[in-house]
C-alpha cells in the first residue's frame, strides 16, 4: 500500500482521534509545549532586543548570542538536559527556548533599529522620555518586523517540538516516533501532516493578529499614488512589504 493510503488509513481510523493518545490530546500537548517555549523565549529575548535596538549598544553581543544559539544542536541539548535533570518537560522547554530566542531577538533589534532616525529625533525633540519613545513610537513602527520574528520563531518551535517525543513526552511527535518504532508509515505521515497544518494555522493566526495590531500607516497597505513612470522595458519589481522572516533574521545577523 502506498504512503498516501497508509496516511488516509491512519487519519480515518476513529481510534486515532480518541483518548489520551488521540490526535486532539496530542495537539493540545503540542500547543502547550509550543506556547510555553515561545512565551519564555519572548520574555527573555524581547526586552533585550528592545534595549539593544533602542540604545544601539550591545548589538554585536546580541547578534553573536543569536548566532551562537543557532549553532547549538537542539537534539543534543534536549538529551543533555535529560541526562542532567531527568526526563520531564524541562529539557524540552530548554531546547525549544534556545530555538525561539534568536529569531525574536534579531527581529526585535532589527525592527527597532530600522525606525528612521528622523522620526526618533523628532520624538526626542518633542520632549518624550526614552521609555515613552520606545513604547509609543519605536515599537509600533517596528511591530511588523517583530511579529515577523515571532512567526519565524513559532514555525521553528512547532516544528522542533516533535522531538519531545524522543524523550518520552507527548505532543504530535509521538506519532512520528511511535510510527517509526512500529514501521507504521501512516502514523508517521499523519503526525507530520498534522504538525504542518498546525504550523500553517498558527502562521495565519499571526498574520491576522498583525493586521489587527499594526497601524495601517505602518503596514504599507495605504499607498498614496501608484508608481510613476517613466520606467524601462522591464519594470522593476515593487518591493513587497511582506514580513520576510528569514531575511530580517539573517540581515540583522550579517553585521
Amino acid at each position: 500500500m502506498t504512503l498516501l493510503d497508509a496516511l488516509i488509513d491512519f487519519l480515518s481510523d476513529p481510534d486515532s482521534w480518541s483518548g489520551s493518545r488521540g490526535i486532539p490530546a496530542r495537539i493540545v500537548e503540542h500547543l502547550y509545549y509550543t506556547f510555553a517555549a515561545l512565551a519564555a523565549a519572548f520574555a527573555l529575548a524581547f526586552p533585550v532586543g528592545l534595549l539593544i535596538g533602542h540604545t544601539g549598544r550591545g548589538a554585536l553581543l546580541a547578534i553573536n548570542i543569536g548566532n551562537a544559539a543557532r549553532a547549538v544542536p537542539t537534539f543534543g541539548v534536549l538529551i543533555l538536559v535529560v541526562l542532567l535533570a531527568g526526563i520531564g518537560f524541562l529539557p524540552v522547554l530548554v531546547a525549544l527556548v534556545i530555538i525561539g530566542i534568536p529569531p525574536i531577538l534579531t527581529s526585535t533589534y532589527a525592527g527597532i533599529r530600522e525606525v528612521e532616525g528622523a522620526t526618533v529625533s523628532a520624538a526626542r525633540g518633542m520632549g518624550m522620555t526614552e521609555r515613552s519613545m520606545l513604547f509609543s513610537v519605536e515599537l509600533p513602527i517596528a511591530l511588523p518586523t517583530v511579529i515577523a520574528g515571532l512567526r519565524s520563531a513559532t514555525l521553528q518551535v512547532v516544528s522542533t517540538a516533535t522531538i519531545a517525543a524522543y524523550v518520552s513526552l507527548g505532543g504530535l511527535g509521538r506519532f512520528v516516533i511511535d510510527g517509526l518504532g512500529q514501521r507504521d508509515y501512516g502514523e508517521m505521515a499523519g503526525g507530520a501532516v498534522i504538525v504542518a497544518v498546525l504550523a500553517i494555522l498558527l502562521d495565519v493566526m499571526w498574520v491576522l493578529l498583525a493586521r489587527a495590531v499594526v497601524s495601517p500607516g505602518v503596514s504599507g497597505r495605504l499607498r498614496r499614488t501608484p508608481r510613476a513612470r517613466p520606467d524601462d522595458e522591464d519594470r522593476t519589481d515593487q518591493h513587497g512589504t511582506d514580513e520576510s522572516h528569514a531575511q530580517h533574521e539573517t540581515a540583522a545577523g550579517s553585521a
Partner: protein
Amino acid sequence: MDWGYVESNVDLIVSKLVEHLYLSIVPILVALVLAIVIGALAVRFPKSYPPILALSSAFYTVPSLALFVILPGIIGTQILDPVNVIIALTIYSLSLLVRNVVDGLRVTSADVRQSALSMGYTRTRQLWSVELPIAMPLIFAGLRVATVANISMVSVGALIGVGGLGELMTDGFQRNYLAPLLVGLVLSVALALVADVVIVTLQRWLTPWARLARQA
C-alpha cells in the same frame, strides 16, 4: 566527563564528524545553486513568486524528523539511506535561500538597472555581473543561517540511523552516558561556529564594498 571515552573512540568520533560535515554541506551547495536558478526566475517572472514562496514556506513547516521519514515513502529510497537526510536538508535550505536570493536580487536599484541596460548589458550578463554580486550580502546572510541550521538538523537524523554526530548523542541517551553526548554536542557546536567563520570570511573577501559602504 569521561576522557577515556574519547581516547578509545577516536576513530568513531572522527568518522561521525566527517559524515556530519558531508551531510550538512552537500545540501547547502545543491540548495544554493537551485535557489539562484529559482530566485532568478522568480524575479524575472514576478507572478511566479507568491506560489514559490508559499510552497517553500510549506516545506519549512514540516518537521525535519517527519521529512526524513516520509521521503523514503515518496521517493522510494530505503529508510536508512543518507540520501533521505541530504534531500530533506536540501529542501529546507532551498526554502530558506530562495527568499534571500530573491530579496538580494531586488536590492539592485532602478538607477543601476537602467544604467546597465543602457550601457548595453544583455539580460543574462546583467544578472551575473551586476545583480547577483549586489545580492551577495543577503545571500551570504542566508547561507550562514542555513548552514548552521543544517548542522543542527543533521543530528536528528540519528533517529533513523543516519546522523553523524547525532548518533553519538543518541548513544549517550540510550546508555545514560554523558561522555558521547558531550562529545557530539561540543563538536557539533564547534563545527557550526567554524562554518560560520568560514562563510563570514568568504563574504568579507568577496564583497569588500559592502563593508566600506557601512563605514563611509
